[in-house]
């Protein structure tokens, strides 16, 4: 379909959207085993569909780095024009990204950073550490003056470095105001695991003041667990920014008082950047001739006051 009059989520309609030479983009991401990751892929697909000059090669999402490497190898064999890669593990996918770059295929790195600056033409980075900081800072503000406040954290998949970054940011921010994480459990980014982890957590901590949950998809389960336990003495801060949670924040009728956005549109950004890179175009709002090397996304805190701005771009979990 030709680019429609409507604009992409949050984006402006610019001259860049005019059809150009045909671009074949290979896209690979981890397994869509949780809402945010599914939203990433869906948004990328939707973005690609907006351009008549983009052909998207979407491959099986996988958490096996070996398989993901071979997918990128397939892209190289196929001589696609650009690769958008959300690696399961940034460091592990670096060699094959380097190989792609050497083969003259620009790689757009999304979310989890490679460990070599030469491995990507451009990098769209979510700010995991910053996300923790945002959540921690918000909690500090709300709990101002409560020195004995009990703060808990429901992390995501604990073996992922990004979870470590988020937790570190969170702990650092809390330390600024003299608080610390009293209880920490880890879930798996899924509703069910959120429910399980929260159920146990609520037992471990008889009294709570604030809880930060890394992921709004698992947050559905967390909310259910809190309801099951009949607890309501604390407030919840979400993560990632799902539409559900934002609606709850807007209605102000639940435990969620805020959520920290971790944009699920990164993949879509990657698609756009890839297209621009191949077509030799630049970013509309920058003066530069080329697209930038790195874009670090902001992790804003969404509260009742500003929710209307973010709701349209939120992902449906």
């Amino acid at each position, binding site marked *: 379909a030709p680019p429609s009059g409507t604009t992409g989520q949050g984006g402006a309609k610019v001259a860049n959207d005019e059809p150009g030479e045909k671009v074949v983009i290979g896209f690979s991401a981890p397994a869509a085993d949780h809402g945010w990751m599914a939203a990433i892929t*869906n948004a990328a697909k939707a973005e690609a569909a907006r351009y008549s000059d983009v052909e998207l090669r979407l491959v099986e999402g996988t958490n096996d780095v070996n398989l993901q490497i071979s997918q990128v190898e397939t892209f190289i064999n196929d001589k696609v024009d650009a690769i958008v890669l959300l690696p399961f593990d940034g460091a592990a996918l670096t060699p094959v990204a380097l190989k792609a770059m050497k083969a003259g295929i620009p790689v757009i790195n999304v979310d989890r950073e490679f460990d070599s600056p030469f491995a990507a033409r451009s990098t769209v980075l979510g700010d995991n550490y910053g996300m923790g900081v945002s959540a921690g800072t918000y909690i500090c503000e709300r709990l101002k003056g409560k020195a004995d406040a009990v703060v808990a954290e429901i992390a995501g998949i604990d073996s992922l470095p990004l979870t470590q970054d988020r937790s570190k940011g969170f702990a650092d921010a809390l330390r600024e105001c003299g608080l610390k994480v009293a209880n920490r459990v880890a879930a798996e980014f899924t*509703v*069910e*695991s959120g*429910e399980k*982890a929260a159920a146990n957590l609520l037992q*471990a901590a008889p009294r709570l003041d604030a809880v930060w949950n890394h992921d709004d998809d698992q947050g*559905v389960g967390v909310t259910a*667990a809190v309801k099951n336990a009949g607890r309501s003495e604390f407030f919840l801060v979400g993560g990632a920014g799902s539409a559900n949670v934002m609606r709850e924040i807007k209605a102000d009728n639940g435990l969620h008082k805020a959520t920290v956005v971790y944009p699920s549109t990164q993949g879509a950004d990657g698609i756009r950047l890839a297209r621009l890179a191949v077509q030799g175009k630049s970013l509309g709002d920058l003066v530069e001739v080329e697209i930038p090397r790195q874009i670090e996304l902001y992790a804003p805190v969404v509260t009742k006051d500003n929710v209307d701005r973010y709701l349209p771009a939120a992902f449906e979990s």
Partner: protein
Amino acid sequence: MVADAAPRTAGRFLASAPGRNTGLVVALVLLCLVGVATAGDRFADLDNVLTILRLASVIGVVSIGMTFVVTGGGIDLSVGAIVALASVWATTLATQGMAADTHWLVVVFTALAVGAGCGVVNGVLVAYGRIVAFIATLAMLAAARGLAEIISNRRTQILNVPGFTAFFDASVLGVPVLVVIFALVAAGGWVLLNRTTFGRRTFAVGGNPEAARLAGIDVRRHTVVLYTLLGVCCGIAAVMLIARTTTGSSTHGALYELDAIAAVVIGGTLLSGGRGTIAGTVFGVLIFTTLSNVFTLNNLSTSAQAVAKGAIIVVAVLLQQRLARRGGA
């Protein structure tokens, strides 16, 4: 003979049906003692006990079903995927629409029907297609999860059927409905396995399929029924999970296959078939659930939890075996 009368009585007891689970009981009690020692009142608290039971109930129902399949000489890797598919199907807008118009039981029946359907397919592939159970149910695992993703479009589907939530959120005499369901399924499973013709035949089909065939049992049909039964259990588990999380999702039931098989095997059911115990399975489920509860109460990091879990499993099984051996079973 007189001399060793006492140990022999002990041996008799240990070898008897309840006695065979002594090791498990001891392991569970030890675990609880550790819980009390490290977390005190936070562990030995009615709410906490109910939390443990609630957590145990979903995987517990699946494990009871798994006990039948494993006792009957099979295995099912697709249980988690079936739970996911059933939960998604039962919470599609269409199903919810029907439930809103008619009765929330529609949701329940949809989940059970989907579970049973998948079970029948598994059973037919194994019994009539003669595909190794491991492979047939692995295929079902892939297919059911994929289907669940397609149906849900990978979105978490939120339940909006009031009667449903009201019913499953209730308590009976202070016991949550979910726990009651688990208890009923366990009790029903015990009766079915130990007191009915069907149960006897399950042992025979698992223990010596050729002998079962020669005794006039339709081994293939029986196998299909076993997988269907497990499918229905997955359907029940899906309903419970929907109730607990108010959602259906293609990510539900992750790794249930490992958890359920582990509970069944640690409970004393033979993976090669022919021997199975419902009580053992219930203990197995409780041990695993209590373990993660104790870990969380103690704020242990997930990595330390994993290492400790491995060690504890080994110790529990060794303990169980020493006791069973003394019982001369």
